[in-house]
C-alpha cells in the first residue's frame, strides 16, 4: 500500500515545496494604506523597461513620477515646470539658461537643486550610460550650474526647438552617487519630483503609484494610480469588461464594443504617428517621379482609415500632423483615391498599359516590391491595401513580409511601409528622415531622397528662432515633399481608450507613438477624480 500512494505523495510534497518557494519570492508588499475608492486603475499593453528617464522612460514628459524643466499643456505647448519660467535663449541661440522653481522636493524629501539637472543631462551624454537619448541631444555641448538655482546649457550650434528637449524628467544626483547608472536600483524604484511616488513595481503585473501630497503643482485629486500591464489586447478587453479598470488602452475594434455598453465611454485620441510607403530613389521604378505621383493619387486613404484602422485614424498627406501649428493645409489632398489623375500622370510620362494591364516604359514593367515587418499586422494590411489600389492604375506591387534584419539591407532598392511622427516639433524626426545629409544612413532617409530645397528649408527651420520664419520654412518643406513624393503618406493613427463613466477630468491631447505609463490619455491623471 505504501508504494501505491507514492506518486500522489511525491506530487503533494512537490506542490508544498513549490508553494514555499513562491512564498519566498513574493513581490515587495507596499506599506501605503490609501483609500481604494479614490485610487484609479489604468491598463496598458506597453510596460517600460526601466523607470529612469535617463534610460528612456517618459522622455517627452507626462511621466507621472518625474518632471522636466518644462512640461506640455493640453495643446502640447510648453509651460514651465521645474524651471520657474520658460528657459531663456541667448541671441546667438547657443546658450540656454533655466532658473529653477523654488521649494521643489524629491519624493524622499530632499530639495531639487541645479546639480541634479546637470547630473541628469550629463548622464545622458555619458558614453558609458546605455541611453538612446544621446542621439536626440546631438547639439548639447555641456551643461553647468553656476549657482544652486540656475542651469546653463551650452549648445554646439543654434537649435531652435531646444526647449522641447527639456521635458526630460530630472533625477536626484545623490541617488546615483558611486553607482553605475545602467544598473542602479533606482531604475526600478525611482525617486522623482512628480505628482506620484512609486510604491511598488511588479514587472509583468502592475506599477503602484501613491499621490505625492507635497507636489509643487498641488496635491493630486486622487490618492493614487495603479497601472496594470496586460500585454494581450483580448485579455485587456475582458478585464475591462469585468470592471477591473477605470481606463484602458484598447485596439479600435475591441474598443468599439464598449460604445454601446452602459457605464463606459470611448475616447479616440489623435496622434502624430503616421504610416506611409517609403519609395527608394535607387529603384528604377519607384525612382521615377511619375510612378510616385501616380501612387500618391491612386491610394484610397479613406478606405484604409475605415477598413484597416476601424475608423481610428485620419488620412495623412505629410509628416507634419494636421493638429500641429506648423501644418500646411495646402498639401492635403483628397482622402479618396483619384484613379483618373493617377492614370493621366502615368500616360503623360510614357508608362503605357501592356497586354496584361501592367504599364510598361522602355521595356520595363511598372512593378516593385513593398516590404513590411511581418509581425506588424497593421502595416501588413496597409501594404495589401496599397497593392490593391496600385493594381487599379496598372502598377504591380509585390508585398513581402520580412523581419527587420532582412528588411534593413534592402531599403535602398525596395519600398517599405514605415511609421514615424512626433507632435512636438517638425524638426524632430523630419530633419533626419528627409535631409540629403542622412541619405542611406540606417533608418534615416533609407531611400536616399535628395532635394536642395528640402535641405535648405529643414536647415532654416532648425536655425531660425523666429516662429514666423520657422512656419514659412516648414511650409516650403511640406510643399516640396508633396511635389517630390519620396514617401506616400497613408494615415495618421488614433489611440483608442475605454474609460468608465465614473471617471472625470479626462482631457486627451495629441499623443506621440510611444504611450504607456507616460504620455497616454492619463497624462494628467493627477487631476482626475472618480465618483464611487
Amino acid at each position: 500500500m505504501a508504494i501505491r500512494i507514492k506518486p500522489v505523495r511525491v506530487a503533494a510534497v512537490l506542490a508544498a515545496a513549490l508553494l514555499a518557494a513562491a512564498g519566498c519570492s513574493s513581490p515587495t508588499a507596499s506599506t501605503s494604506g490609501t483609500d481604494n475608492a479614490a485610487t484609479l486603475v489604468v491598463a496598458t499593453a506597453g510596460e517600460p523597461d526601466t523607470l529612469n528617464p535617463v534610460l528612456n522612460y517618459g522622455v517627452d514628459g507626462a511621466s507621472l513620477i518625474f518632471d522636466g524643466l518644462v512640461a506640455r499643456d493640453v495643446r502640447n505647448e510648453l509651460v514651465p515646470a521645474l524651471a520657474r519660467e520658460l528657459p531663456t535663449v541667448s541671441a546667438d541661440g547657443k546658450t540656454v539658461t533655466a532658473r529653477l522653481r523654488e521649494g521643489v522636493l524629491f519624493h524622499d524629501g530632499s530639495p531639487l537643486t541645479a546639480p541634479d539637472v546637470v547630473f541628469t543631462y550629463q548622464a545622458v551624454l555619458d558614453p558609458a550610460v546605455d541611453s538612446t537619448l544621446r542621439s536626440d541631444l546631438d547639439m548639447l555641448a555641456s551643461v553647468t550650474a553656476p549657482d544652486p538655482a540656475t542651469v546653463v546649457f551650452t549648445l554646439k550650434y543654434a537649435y531652435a526647438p531646444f526647449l522641447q528637449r527639456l521635458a526630460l524628467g530630472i533625477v536626484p544626483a545623490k541617488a546615483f552617487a558611486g553607482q553605475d547608472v545602467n544598473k542602479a536600483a533606482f531604475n526600478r524604484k525611482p525617486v522623482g519630483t512628480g505628482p506620484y511616488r512609486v510604491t511598488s513595481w511588479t514587472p509583468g503585473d502592475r506599477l503602484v503609484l501613491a499621490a505625492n501630497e507635497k507636489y509643487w503643482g498641488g496635491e493630486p485629486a486622487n490618492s493614487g494610480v495603479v497601472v496594470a500591464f496586460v500585454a494581450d489586447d483580448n485579455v485587456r478587453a475582458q478585464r475591462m469588461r469585468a470592471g477591473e479598470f477605470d481606463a484602458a488602452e484598447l485596439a479600435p475594434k475591441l474598443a468599439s464594443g464598449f460604445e454601446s455598453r452602459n457605464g463606459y465611454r470611448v475616447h479616440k485620441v489623435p496622434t502624430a504617428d503616421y504610416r506611409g510607403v517609403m519609395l527608394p530613389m535607387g529603384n528604377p521604378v519607384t525612382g521615377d517621379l511619375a510612378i510616385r505621383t501616380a501612387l500618391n493619387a491612386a491610394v484610397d486613404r479613406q478606405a484604409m482609415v475605415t477598413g484597416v484602422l476601424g475608423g481610428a485614424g485620419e488620412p495623412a498627406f505629410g509628416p507634419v500632423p494636421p493638429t500641429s501649428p506648423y501644418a500646411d493645409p495646402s498639401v492635403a489632398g483628397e482622402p479618396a483615391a483619384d484613379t483618373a489623375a493617377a492614370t493621366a500622370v502615368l500616360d503623360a510620362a510614357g508608362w503605357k498599359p501592356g497586354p496584361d494591364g501592367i504599364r510598361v516604359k522602355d521595356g520595363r514593367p511598372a512593378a516593385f516590391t513593398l516590404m513590411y515587418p511581418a509581425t506588424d499586422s497593421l502595416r501588413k494590411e496597409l501594404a495589401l491595401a496599397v497593392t490593391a489600389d496600385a493594381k487599379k492604375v496598372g502598377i504591380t506591387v509585390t508585398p513581402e513580409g520580412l523581419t527587420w534584419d532582412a528588411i534593413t539591407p534592402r531599403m535602398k532598392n525596395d519600398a517599405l511601409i514605415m511609421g514615424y511622427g512626433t507632435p512636438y516639433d517638425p524638426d524632430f524626426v523630419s530633419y533626419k528622415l528627409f535631409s540629403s545629409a542622412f541619405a542611406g544612413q540606417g533608418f534615416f532617409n533609407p531611400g536616399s531622397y535628395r532635394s536642395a530645397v528640402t535641405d535648405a528649408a529643414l536647415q532654416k527651420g532648425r536655425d531660425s528662432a523666429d516662429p514666423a520664419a520657422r512656419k514659412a520654412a516648414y511650409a516650403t518643406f511640406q510643399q516640396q515633399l508633396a511635389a517630390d513624393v519620396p514617401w506616400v503618406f497613408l494615415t495618421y493613427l488614433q489611440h483608442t481608450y475605454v474609460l468608465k463613466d465614473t471617471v472625470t477630468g479626462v482631457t486627451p491631447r495629441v499623443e506621440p507613438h510611444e504611450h504607456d505609463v507616460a504620455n497616454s490619455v492619463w497624462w494628467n491623471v493627477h487631476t482626475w477624480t472618480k465618483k464611487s
Partner: protein
Amino acid sequence: MTAPATGRRRLAGAGAVVRRRLLVAVPVLAATSMGMFALGAASPIDPAQQYAGAAAFTTSEENLAQIRANWGVDDPLPVQYARWIGNLLRGDLGWSTSRHEPVTSVLAARAGWTLLLVGTALALVLVASVLLGTLAAYRRGGWFDRALRSVAYAVQSMPVFWIGLAAIAVFALSLGWLPAGGLTDITATGTDPFDVARHLVLPVTVLAISQAPWFVLFVRDAVAESLRDDHVLAARARGLPGRVVLFGHALRTALLPFLTLVGTHLPELVGGAVLVETVFSLPGLGAVTVEAALGADFPLLAATTLATTVVVLTANLLTDLAYAAADPRVRLDD
C-alpha cells in the same frame, strides 16, 4: 508490513544513480549553454536595437554601437562564453539586457510563480487523471467512459489560450465568480495568500484541463489493459472485492508506465504554462522568456534554458527513482 523494508532495499543503489546522473548533467548543461550561445551568434537580431525599442528608428548608429560596446555583445563568441561561464562560477548569472536587471533577480521574482502554477496544475492533473481514468476503465464502454473519452478528445484539440479565454468569459465575466487575471486584486497592497489562491484557481484549472487528456486516456487504457492481466484475474477469482482489485491490483500495475509519461510530459506542461501566464496576465517566467528570445537577451535566455534543463533532468531522475521504488523488476544497483 514488509513494504517499507522492501522499498528501502529497492532504492539501495539510489545514491550511485544520483551521482552518475549528476556527472552526466554537467556535460548536458555545458552543451545546452554552448548551444544557446551558438544560436545567439547566428541570430541576426541586434540586441541594442531591441533594447532601444521604438527609439531604435531615431537613434544614430554611433549611439547603438556605443551601447553594444558597453555590453560587449560584439566580442567574439568564445570570449563572451568564457566571460559568462566565469561569472556563472562566481554565482553571477549576468545582466538581462531586455529586463534591465540582474538575471538572478528576474528569476527570483518570477520563477516561483511559474513553479507554483506548473506544480499545482501537475498535482491536479495527476490526481484527476488517476481517478477519472480508473473509473472509466472499470466500466469500460459505459456512459461515463464514453463521455470522458469524447471530452478528452475535444479538449486535446482546443488550444490552451482558447480554453483560457473561454474560462474567463464564463467564470469571470458572465458568472463573476473568479477574477479574470492578474496575481492579486488590482488595488491590493500586498500578496495575500488567499487573494493569490483565488486568482490562481482559473489559470491552474485551465492548465490542468489542457494537459489532462493525455494522462486520463493513458491511465484509462493502462488500467483497462491490466484488468485483463493474470494477477488481476487471479485476485478477482479469489473473490476479492471489486474496489480492492481495481485500486490494489490493476491500478498499481498500470501506474508504472504512467510515471514515465509524467517525466516526459513535463516540458509540454511548461510550454502550456507560458500561454496560460499570458492569458491570465501572470508575472511568471513565460513572458520574459519570449521577450528575452525576441530581444536577443542571451544571459536571461541561457539562464531560463539552464533552469528548464535542470528541471527536466531532475524530473527524469525522480521518475527513475520512483520507478525503482514501484516496480520490483527494476534494480538501480545493477
